[in-house]
């Protein structure tokens, strides 16, 4: 279980209060108006923003003081998820060895991950020679080899067209089901939440509310969410 206990996160002049639990294996959408603190929440869990108060724990492990790379977290950002000077295979390999010194077993692991996302033939290409959708698949292949318990998505598919975005969300959904990872994804679009999420964390007015079942919340939104959904 991911536990955020009495957390306060400050980012510039902005402050976000969080007190919630997320069960292992759930798929959770984080929604709310722009500037409400969705990314702040995700970045604090990933370890990019320090906690001003409270603790973050994954099961029995306290994460609060761990560096980002030492947390059981894989994350995809809005952009810049691949290094443009490295090949697809190298970008995936970084998920196993940040210094790129792979064993034979790890090399086949990278190949298998690229095959899983349908890019076996593209392993030697650099990102510039891949389409937007293919780039997203490379990043997801890396998430796969990282094998972390938590997958955080900060709208990595926002620049894709609607059909491609739906395809990527379905792939994400399949991957987390296969690996048993817990998913937290920031989204602007309630349709994304309905598509793959079990629960929704609503972030509004500097507070991240505890998760609620998707359909229950979206079918009968509280006033703050209703204002946002319009």
């Amino acid at each position: 279980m991911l536990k955020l206990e009495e957390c306060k996160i400050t980012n510039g002049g902005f402050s976000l209060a969080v007190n919630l639990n997320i069960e292992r294996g759930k798929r959770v959408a984080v929604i709310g108006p722009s500037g409400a603190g969705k990314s702040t929440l995700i970045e604090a869990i990933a370890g990019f923003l320090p906690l001003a108060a409270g603790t973050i724990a994954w099961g029995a492990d306290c994460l609060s003081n761990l560096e980002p790379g030492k947390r059981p977290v894989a994350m995809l950002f809005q952009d810049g998820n691949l290094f443009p000077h490295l090949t697809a295979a190298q970008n995936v390999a970084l998920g196993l060895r940040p210094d790129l010194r792979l064993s034979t077993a790890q090399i086949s692991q990278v190949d298998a991950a690229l095959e899983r996302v349908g890019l076996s033939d593209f392993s030697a290409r650099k990102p510039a020679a891949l389409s937007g959708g293919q780039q997203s698949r490379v990043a997801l292949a890396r998430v796969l080899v990282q094998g972390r318990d938590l997958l955080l998505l900060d709208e990595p598919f926002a620049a894709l067209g609607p059909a491609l975005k739906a395809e990527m969300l379905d792939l994400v959904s399949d991957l987390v089901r296969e690996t048993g990872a817990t998913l937290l994804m920031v989204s602007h679009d309630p349709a994304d939440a309905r598509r793959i999420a079990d629960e929704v964390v609503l972030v509004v007015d500097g507070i991240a509310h505890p998760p609620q079942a998707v359909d229950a919340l979206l079918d009968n939104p509280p006033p703050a969410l209703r204002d946002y959904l319009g």
Partner: protein
Amino acid sequence: MAERAQPINARTGIGAALFVAALILGTLAAVALRAEEGRGLGSSDWAALRFTLTQAILSAVLSVGLAIPVARALARRRFAGRSALIALLGAPFILPVIVAILGLLHVFGRSGWISQALGFVGLPPLSIYGLHGVVLAHVFFNLPLATRLILQAWQEVPSEQYRLAAQLNAGPRAMFGLIELPLLKRVVPGALAIVFAICLTSFAVALTLGGGPRATTIELAIYQAFRFDFDLGRAAILSGLQLILTAGAALIALRFSRNHGLGAELDRVLRRWDGTGVGAQTFDVFWIGIAALFLLLPLSAIVLSGLIGLSTLPIEVFKAAGISVILALSSTIILLLMALPMSFAAAVGKRGIIEISGILGLAASPLVIGTGLFILIHPFANPTVLALPVTAIVNAVMALPFALRILVPRARQVVGQYGKLGLSLDMKGFPFVRHVLLLRMRAQIGFSAGLAAALSMGDLGVITLFADPDTATLPLQIYRLMGAYRMDAAASGALLLLVLSLGAFWVFDRGGRWHAEA
């Protein structure tokens, strides 16, 4: 975790910055301790101070004053060769001073092209030595720099402003008041300050074209006190004076300067609707032509007369060239070892200490550091044995401020773009440097390495303090040939040096951009 997590730590960079600060301040302290034994400033020292200030002010005013019409013409004209001319304006930065001086002698000297032409119509030849020669050489070097600085400001005017002015049917006078005067007010003080600061530390120009009681800069006076009188106390006092001057000028220049004229976006052509009158066109053609001739004639003179003597070049020249190549490579490696960690540290927020050592580097005079190192080394070893290592280090420190200006913005950008991704993949420290920073910064590293190699290759400064008659870098060898009135051999050596300097810059700069991805 009080601070945001970062993919690299700043320790190595801070160490490098402290090394630079220790080198500059340590040599300064050595000089200061020695200066107490001296006896204050004599009348010739005051004369040197007056001459230094006079030539620097004249050079700054002339360079910037002439740069304004040239930059204006380049900003509003498009013509074949415009990009080439703008690239040529960047060349004096890496052009060895001794090469330019020989070129200027060929054109403006006593038996130069212009004097010969004057002879045909019965006029006396020009004399290039003294104040006007020093100023001429400084304008040769700094007119292009000032033009690039001012052109950059011109290019930064949003094209909407020209569109609006055209829409309002603004004539030349209105254009001047609306657009040109405000931008000149912004950029001219900085350009003046930069050229002034550069000319204060002029050594090689004064060494070759100045001299004598009426045309000696402080930097040259340090050299003379050192080399001819071996009066360390006097050299030390002059060094202190020089340091006060340059530190003040560097602070002023930094305050005014927003950019460094090294930018690559200068050949963008904005769409313009003004300046279509015959008068304006003639004016612009005149200024572009004058600037191009002023730059190209001395360079062509060196190439022409250098080619003639190339086959009879004495063997010492080739030996000196070999030494210069090794020196330039060593200096480039030293520079990168200092500048890269410093730029990484600056990128993760440790800006203060990095900026301080950058300012120190701008204010430091090679001759002062050289004097200090000589004083420090003298009790323990024969300084002439260490001439080349000392020169390599001093040259690297001199190139450091420029390298930092090129590297730091890019390092900051790369850490901003990929720092989080690296952290989330646990790519901290060396893996991040090796697989991300060095590869993403290749073009900037190549550019700075090219500058450092070319500057070191052409440097005629601290080596003159240390070298014994048997060792010489190529610039020093050329200077010695000039002193022996072997002008043809000197010209050929200068051609060789020109090729080596520009070649070193080209190889590194190209190498950095070779097969680089966007």
